[in-house]
């Protein structure tokens, strides 16, 4: 792997970086207000809608968008497609930040954060709770991701000292590298198991909501649909991010690799759509899709986005052109995002005239988290060997 990746180098204090930093700082101030004055001071959350975009986006959709590392690991290490190696590191990096920020954002959302560690104390554990499985699994996976990505840090500290601050370059990590090379396979395997568990469980979370969740989303297939969707989003983000980074950093697009990779998407989206509609039809829930309400409309938007992704990526000819591939990846990411928003917010109706729309504060905090993720990504790819060497493309 060491010959494939190279730091981009160059100035990191660019205009986009500064704008992103501005959003991050602003979100930081709002988070401060939330800690001093309470959640209600910045969020529109209520007893009817206890979960808003901080859960639906930051955690549920955010980790699905961060499934690139997981999906690539299935392909490269489980299905033994070594040729995709150059795409693994950038995918892992995005996954590492996506998951780390998702886990961190939970501490903005939970009300009694100072007792958050109770999640990990066995005497408090409720093994019947889907939330416990999700929390323990995500926390573990965050650590696994840092372990999986660590070789990029080690390599940077050994071979690309010119990009790094002095205190980092003095540290000899060759011993650690040896240890890592021996045990990494276990963490890669563990890193495939954990998302399989929690990405499906993120869907299972809503089972307990019973009739409060519209029959268009409430189904025993929630875990399976969430899992397939997350894996597909994983490939979509790898394609999206790779094309975006190539254009943004003015590098050649990794066409041959991405073309091949995008071939996995049509069957996945197809299987997902078959299960999705068969389930809704067999349960006799389709009637709910024809009501004059936002949830019905959003059901069609969600599935139209899946179909759009499929239409763009299914023809083999489209998989040789960056534009349709990029659009398909984009539609798939938005489709998965809308599916999660629908299952957690839009399709959720506690009754009694409760309503929810995210507040300015909630939106800005979420944007701040996304901004921080992107700016951290920008910094790391310039300083450490993450992106494939240009000539590789």
């Amino acid at each position, binding site marked *: 792997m060491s010959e494939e990746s190279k730091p981009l180098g160059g100035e990191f204090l660019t205009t986009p970086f500064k704008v992103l930093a501005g959003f991050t700082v602003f979100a930081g101030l709002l988070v401060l207000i939330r800690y001093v*004055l*309470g*959640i*209600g*001071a910045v969020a529109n*959350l*209520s*007893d009817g809608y*206890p979960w808003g975009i901080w859960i639906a986006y930051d955690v549920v959709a955010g980790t699905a968008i961060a499934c690139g590392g997981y999906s690539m690991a*299935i*392909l490269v*290490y*489980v299905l*033994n497609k*070594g040729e995709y190696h150059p795409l693994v590191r950038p995918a892992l990096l995005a996954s590492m930040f996506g998951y780390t920020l998702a886990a961190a954002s939970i501490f903005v959302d*939970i*009300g*009694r954060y100072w*007792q958050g560690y*109770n*999640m990990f*104390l066995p005497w*408090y554990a*409720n093994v*019947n*709770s*889907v*939330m*416990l499985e999700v*929390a323990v699994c995500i926390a573990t996976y965050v650590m696994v991701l840092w372990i999986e990505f660590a070789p990029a840090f080690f390599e940077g500290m050994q071979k690309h000292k010119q990009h790094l601050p002095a205190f980092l370059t003095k540290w000899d990590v060759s011993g650690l590298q040896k240890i890592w090379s021996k045990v990494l*396979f276990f963490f890669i*395997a*563990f890193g*495939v*198991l954990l998302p399989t*568990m929690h990405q*499906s*469980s993120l*869907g*299972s*979370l809503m*089972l*307990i*909501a*019973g*009739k*409060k969740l519209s029959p268009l989303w409430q189904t*025993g297939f929630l*875990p*399976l649909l969430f899992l397939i969707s997350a*894996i597909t989003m994983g490939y979509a983000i790898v394609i999206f991010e790779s094309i975006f980074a190539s254009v943004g950093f003015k590098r050649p697009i990794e066409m041959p690799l991405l073309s*091949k990779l995008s*071939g*996995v998407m049509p*069957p996945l989206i197809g*299987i997902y759509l078959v299960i999705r509609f068969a389930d809704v039809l067999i349960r006799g829930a389709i009637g709910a899709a024809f009501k004059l309400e936002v949830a019905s409309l959003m059901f069609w938007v969600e599935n139209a986005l899946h179909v759009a992704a499929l239409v763009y990526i299914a023809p083999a000819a489209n998989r040789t052109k960056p534009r349709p591939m990029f659009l398909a990846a984009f539609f798939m990411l938005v489709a998965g995002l809308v599916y999660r928003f629908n299952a957690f917010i839009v399709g*959720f109706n*506690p*009754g*009694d005239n409760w309503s929810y729309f995210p507040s300015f504060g909630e939106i800005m905090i979420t944007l701040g988290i996304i901004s921080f993720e992107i700016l951290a990504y920008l910094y790391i790819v310039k300083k450490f060997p993450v992106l494939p060497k240009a000539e590789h493309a």
Partner: protein
Amino acid sequence: MEIKRREFLKAAAAGGLLAASSAHPALARDPKVRTKDALGLLYDSTVCTGCKACVSACKEYNKMPQSSSSPEDPLWDNALDTDSRTYNIIKLYKDGTGAAKDREKDGHAYIKRQCMHCVDPACVSACPVSALKKRPSDGVVIYDKGACIGCRYCQVGCPFNIPKFEFEKTFPQVQKCQLCSHRLEKNEIPACAEFCPTGATVFGKVDDLMAEAKKRLQYKPGSSQVYPVERLGGKAVAERVVTPYLPKVYGEKDGGGTQVLYLAGVPFEKLGLPELEERSDAQRSETIQHTIYKGMIAPIVLLGGLVYVVHKNTKDHK
């Protein structure tokens, strides 16, 4: 296509199998049943006069602050629903002119809302840290703020929207009726039942409350009957002319059953009580989750397989 679909599907299926098994009810968790000593309330909407003595007694004995629905007048306790300062509330159903009591059309009726102390509570199943527990001795659903992390999953799960959260506080907690468990300890009964002047709310063992409720359903409208006040088997009683009941005890089976039971003359859904299946959501959720994670066997087997395959493949790559 370069990537072999079949191989890919195999991998998707490996993970999918785990989740897909959710569709099979073979390992279904048994439904939970009421224990013999379960305690609860019977609220009879036809008896209630809407005086709200229970609301005020609940506030007083649970030391809860006032809750105002109008910001201009914060001294006036007039919550519109249960909230983080209000465990118990009397709500009004009104249709058209509202003239006749306990009539669906052009009538009105009262409904008392508080924690239902479900037989198989969604909140207890949902809570990751066991902050909500069903007390084995009497089935009361109690809250431990020392355990609670404030994730609000209990709120997502509760079909009655009962757990309430202090969104306005820096250091918030969940608030809900605990059937005056602090009073039960002192051999007293829940304040709402003790201070109900009409006997609309009575306290007792759920088995006895169920028998009382079913007895009332047999009463002839217009006949005069003796209704217990405060608690079943106590000294206080009231004589009353029976008005028509709907032939259902809400809470007998709804949502897997509850320890708070309702009688009414107006359809329960009109009174704001959800129409629930007899199977609790907790049972459904736990059945699916436990099918996937039974003894952690599936995840361990899958991990074993993954470790083997990844080890082999990473060697190949070197």
